[in-house]
């Protein structure tokens, strides 16, 4: 063997050996950044975010049309909308971002560089979680302003609803202007601007108050806990879709994920003996997260229930990540149809 080339190899290996953690962190950060840019430039991401926000923006008008008796329905419908749109985004983002990269995109180049499969996979999981966080950051303020505005009973509270609808229109216009000036993807700017605008609108309207006395189940903390519960469901769904996509094509991974979602929704109503027990052990009862919005606000069980949901979610997602790594580490990076 050539001594000089071997020496260079040994020298380089020794030079980086002492900074393994820093190196891995730097790799994860670099891959996370491109994963995020890759996901955000896909038009489906802002389309889902804006459609959801727009639907929730007009929700407060329902009490107006139904003689003002359904303000609670607005809150629950908003949560359902977040869950449905969020599941679509989670399955799409998680199912495609790893599989497409491995078998169609830059994974071939990436995995020929000195990045470990673990760091690569962690960056992909983190990228999807950041996208879902942006989605929740956009959805939550709109959900809260929309739900609180519906407390205006027969009349919509324009002090809350006005800035919200204005912000929803202003965000894409601003994104288009920035994209035009920077000659970059409109989708990326739109997906990043909506959460910022949503938070700004919520900040200004919340400080001003709704003008109506709020019952407990419309207070900020309570609504936040319900939205966070839905966010945890989305993280679990995404982890499941991504783990399946380490070996399965996008349609198959998406189908199994949706099947698991349905089974999970059913598992709560099954008896806890025999197959029901096994089902409850392996597939989370997604309704558990949902129950948060049904617990009376003053109940002492609210905080422990949320904590239990959080722990269960983290455990489920972590187990899926470990399984994903075991499946991924020996996968061939080869061109496949998506």
């Amino acid at each position, binding site marked *: *063997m*050539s*001594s*000089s*080339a*071997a*020496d*260079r*190899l*040994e*020298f*380089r*290996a020794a030079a*980086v050996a002492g*900074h393994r953690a*820093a*190196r891995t962190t*730097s*790799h994860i950060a*670099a891959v996370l*950044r*491109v994963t995020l*840019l*890759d996901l955000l*430039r896909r038009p489906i991401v802002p389309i889902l975010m804006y459609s959801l926000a727009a639907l929730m923006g007009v929700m407060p008008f329902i009490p107006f049309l139904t003689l003002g008796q359904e303000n609670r329905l607005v809150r629950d419908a908003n949560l359902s909308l977040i869950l449905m749109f969020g599941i679509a985004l989670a399955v799409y983002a998680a199912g495609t971002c790893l599989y497409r990269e491995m078998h*169609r*995109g*830059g*994974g*071939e*180049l*990436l*995995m*020929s*560089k*000195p*990045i*470990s499969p673990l760091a690569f996979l962690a960056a992909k999981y983190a990228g999807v979680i950041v996208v879902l966080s942006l989605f929740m950051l956009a959805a939550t303020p709109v959900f809260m302003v929309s739900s609180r505005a519906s407390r205006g009973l027969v009349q919509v509270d324009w002090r809350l609803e006005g800035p919200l609808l204005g912000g929803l229109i202003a965000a894409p216009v601003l994104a288009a202007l920035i994209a035009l000036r920077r000659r*970059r*993807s409109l989708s*990326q700017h739109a997906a990043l601007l909506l959460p910022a605008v949503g938070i700004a609108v919520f900040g200004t309207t919340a400080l001003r108050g709704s003008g109506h006395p709020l019952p407990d189940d419309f207070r900020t903390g309570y609504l936040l806990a319900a939205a966070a519960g839905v966010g945890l469901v989305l993280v679990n769904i995404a982890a499941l879709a991504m783990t399946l996509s380490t070996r399965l094509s996008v349609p198959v991974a998406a189908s199994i994920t949706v099947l698991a979602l349905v089974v999970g929704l059913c598992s709560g109503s099954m008896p806890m003996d025999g197959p029901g027990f096994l089902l409850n052990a392996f597939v989370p009862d997604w309704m558990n997260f949902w129950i948060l919005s049904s617990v009376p606000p003053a109940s002492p069980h609210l905080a422990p229930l949320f904590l239990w949901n959080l722990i269960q979610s983290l455990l489920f997602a972590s187990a899926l990540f470990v399984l994903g790594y075991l499946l991924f580490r*020996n996968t*061939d*990076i*080869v061109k496949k149809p998506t």
Partner: protein
Amino acid sequence: MHAVQQHASAQQEPVVILRDLSKVYRDFWRRTRIRAVQRLSVEVFRGEVFGLLGPNGSGKTTTLKMLVGLLHPTSGSILILGRTPRSAATRRILGYLPEESPLYPFLSAREALDFYARLFNLSGPERRRRVDQLLEMTGLTHVADRPIGQYSHGMVRRVGLAQALINDPDIIVLDEPTAGMDPLASRQVKDILRSLADQGRTVILSSHLLADVEDICDRIAVLYNGRLRAVGTVEELLVRGDRLIVSLPAADADLLQKITGEIRRRTHREPDISHPRRNLEDFFLDLIRTARDAEASDLSGAGEPGQVAEYLDHYAEHGETPPPHRIQAEKRK
């Protein structure tokens, strides 16, 4: 002079060893779908340009992907400087250009090269220096901040080549490196690869463009249906010992008749007489160079590639001088 001659002593030691390498692609039910590579054994030496030649589906790309650790061999082994391709230490000294340059279309060339440099943990100033030099080397400096999605295929290939060299690699693996390039860019890429090999780097490339392979490779392996059919230097494989070409200045008919008559009398065979031809690539390049000299063109795409990047040029000096601890160890032996 080719590196194969310059580095004659170093060449006796292989840097890449493939032993009985096989790859079988299986379907979901583990049934054999394709035997892409079958019992391939080849050694590649330091400082040579080694070409894998074969028609589509002959196993070239599969072999290269196993070499860089993207595919797992079904059986057999690969050693790169004594290590497996999957080890991070091996990947630090490898540069790889895949067949299709799967770069992120939303990044600019500068951002893409910076991203790949980060994966080698280069410091900020070092990254910037290398990126600038490689952009200059590949003639992309003036379009460096445009998204890659707006590049032509040839320009994308140049970015691909630049990323393969970002880590100052010892071994460069290239799958169809000149695919999609115009003849001028293709010639420049071949010159860059030749000069890298002359500095002591090992270049392994695959191509089905026979002229490209003949042009720059020191040794060639010919694959067909996943099996090795021939391996050797270009001279060994292509020279016909039973024929001889004598090139003369243009001669009048009388002289020509005398020469052919003499050949016929001595060999009892009919000699072939024809005018030598340039190949189409040389003709095209001459034509373009003349046209370029005649009129200064306003290029909207890629510019003229520059010299090999400075840090790549310095390799020979650093790479061929063993560090002191190595020399002392040799002396002790």
